[in-house]
């Protein structure tokens, strides 16, 4: 497989979209951090005489803590949402273009081992994922100190939950791997980068619409069904895992008022969420390999 990986390195190193995404995401994260930090401090600065109510001040302080180490790590990792979209795009584009440009033929004429071709592409995209997640993690550690050095006034943040953070990073990687598998599968099915992108977007919209059908609300058991859908489960998992890692208390607790009476939302636990996302990922990846093995390449 090292040969295919070396080939992927040549492909990726020169592909503009890969470079843009690999470099732009960390840059965007830095910009997001800076603008978030600035705006969290000066919401009311236009009127120096105005003193906001204490619960608002508490919420503002909590908000500002998100930019201080170690909470900053989770804040930065929290911006992987757009990164995941970028990864699906990369999976779809790099696999779809191979078929669209017929270059898959070049690879399969070089070596006809289709499984390795696909496995290597998956690994190569995994490396891009690791780079993105890793760089966000490092930025989460470095940026608060850089901000302090530049004179920003950062509060001390509460500690993060170590195990929860490991779980969060694992969740991000898991969701990313499943998203990559999804992208690869869609590209193999549609046989074209642009068509695959359109299908991926439509799938997400259809899933959202399907999940919000009123029929699910009729029954408590039925209501769990939409939570098992791929994007719903992925989004919920990332959200839950982020909260667990940040060890955040509910907002109501912060402002000191009791939580309002409302029905318990149907949300999968982190472990259950991981299992569901893993199952989807495995399904997508297996389907992609089967498709790759059987498909004719008349391109």
């Amino acid at each position: 497989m090292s040969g295919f990986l070396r080939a992927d390195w040549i492909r990726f190193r020169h592909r503009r979209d890969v470079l843009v995404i690999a470099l732009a995401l960390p840059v965007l994260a830095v910009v997001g951090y800076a603008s978030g930090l600035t705006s969290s401090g000066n919401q009311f600065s236009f009127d120096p005489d105005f003193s906001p109510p204490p619960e608002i001040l508490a919420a503002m302080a909590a908000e500002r803590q998100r930019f201080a180490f170690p909470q900053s790590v989770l804040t930065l990792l929290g911006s992987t949402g757009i990164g995941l979209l970028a990864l699906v795009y990369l999976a779809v584009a790099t696999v779809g273009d191979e078929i669209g440009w017929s270059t898959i033929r070049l690879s399969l004429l070089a070596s006809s081992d289709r499984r390795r071709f696909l496995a290597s592409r998956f690994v190569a995209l995994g490396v891009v994922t690791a780079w993105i997640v890793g760089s966000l993690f490092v930025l989460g550690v470095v940026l608060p100190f850089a901000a302090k050095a530049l004179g920003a006034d950062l509060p001390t943040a509460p500690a993060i939950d170590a195990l929860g953070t490991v779980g969060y990073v694992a969740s991000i990687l898991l969701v990313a791997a499943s998203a990559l598998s999804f992208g690869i599968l869609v590209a193999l099915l549609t046989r074209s980068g642009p068509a695959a992108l359109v299908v991926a977007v439509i799938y997400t919209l259809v899933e959202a619409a399907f999940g919000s059908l009123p029929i699910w609300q009729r029954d408590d058991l039925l209501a769990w069904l939409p939570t098992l859908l791929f994007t719903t489960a992925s989004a919920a998992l990332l959200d839950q895992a982020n909260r667990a890692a940040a060890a955040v208390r509910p907002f109501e607790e912060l402002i000191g008022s009791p939580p309002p009476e409302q029905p318990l939302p149907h949300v999968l636990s982190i472990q259950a969420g991981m299992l569901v996302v893993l199952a989807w990922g495995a399904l997508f990846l297996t389907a992609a390999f089967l498709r790759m093995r059987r498909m004719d390449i008349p391109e």
Partner: protein
Amino acid sequence: MTSDADTVIQTTGLTKRFGGVDAVNGIDFQVRHGDVYGFLGPNGSGKTTTIRLLLGLISPTRGGCSIFGEPVLPGAAALRCVGALVERPAFYPYLSAVDNLLLYAAARGIDRDRATRLVGPALERVGLTEAARRKLAGYSTGMRQRLGIGTALLDGPELIVLDEPTNGLDPGGVVEVRQLIASLAREGATIFLSSHVLTEVEQLCDRVAILVRGRIVSEGSTRDMLGEGERLFLRFETGDEAGRAATLLNQRDIAFERLDDAPALLVSAPASEGARVNRLLGEAGLYPGELSVRRPSLESVFLELTGDRAVEPTASAPDAPAAPATVT
């Protein structure tokens, strides 16, 4: 059909159906080590489809094929010994020719040092040294075709499969590629060549298969195929002499054809029969002013078999190499 250690390509009942179309319909052929095998057929007859099947890019509906005795399946080790150009070659438009070749070499499992050593000569061989660093997006059709050939030959594969290699090349390029194929054949490579350029096949290939609508209608050595259509051309001084010769041939049950525009006959007999026919006529006091052998061109055989047009192997056919045998 038997298969032995000398067999490089073997197909048995190879069939590929696309929708309702039998692109390739139960074809059997064998290519042996060192052959330069010509694969001919009109547009849409299934040449490229056969090549895709041979390379494991598509899977057969029925039947199968093997390369170096190993069934063609995705991942088959035997395919590593094959270099191929299929239809229009495809390359990464954003990479240079060098990078495209390095990528191909990497995917082929060739280590970096060896790949770097191979790329220069490969580009040189197809005349792309100067354009080596240019991105493929800016390549012309012919340049792409040259790079496709260079890719197929990169690591000196044992079997070279070329699908219309001279497509899109300028006349100089056509000659260069023809010489390249001839030199590869001399070096002992087995070559499977699909082509539209019949003179090219005639000059290069020792065996030929002609494919029509997915079926092989003729297969054999190029020499035999061309020999089958050989005729003797006899020209007399007068129409009267030609008439007497015709009567004589009729009496001996020798098939011939009388030409309308000249006192001449075309006798359906191979060159080896020339002396006998000449003697027969001499005994009857008939001496043709010209006796020559008319060999059909591969083109005429091809057109006849593919039913496009019945072409007379006449002396006026510019690419019919008419070798004079005996002249009285």
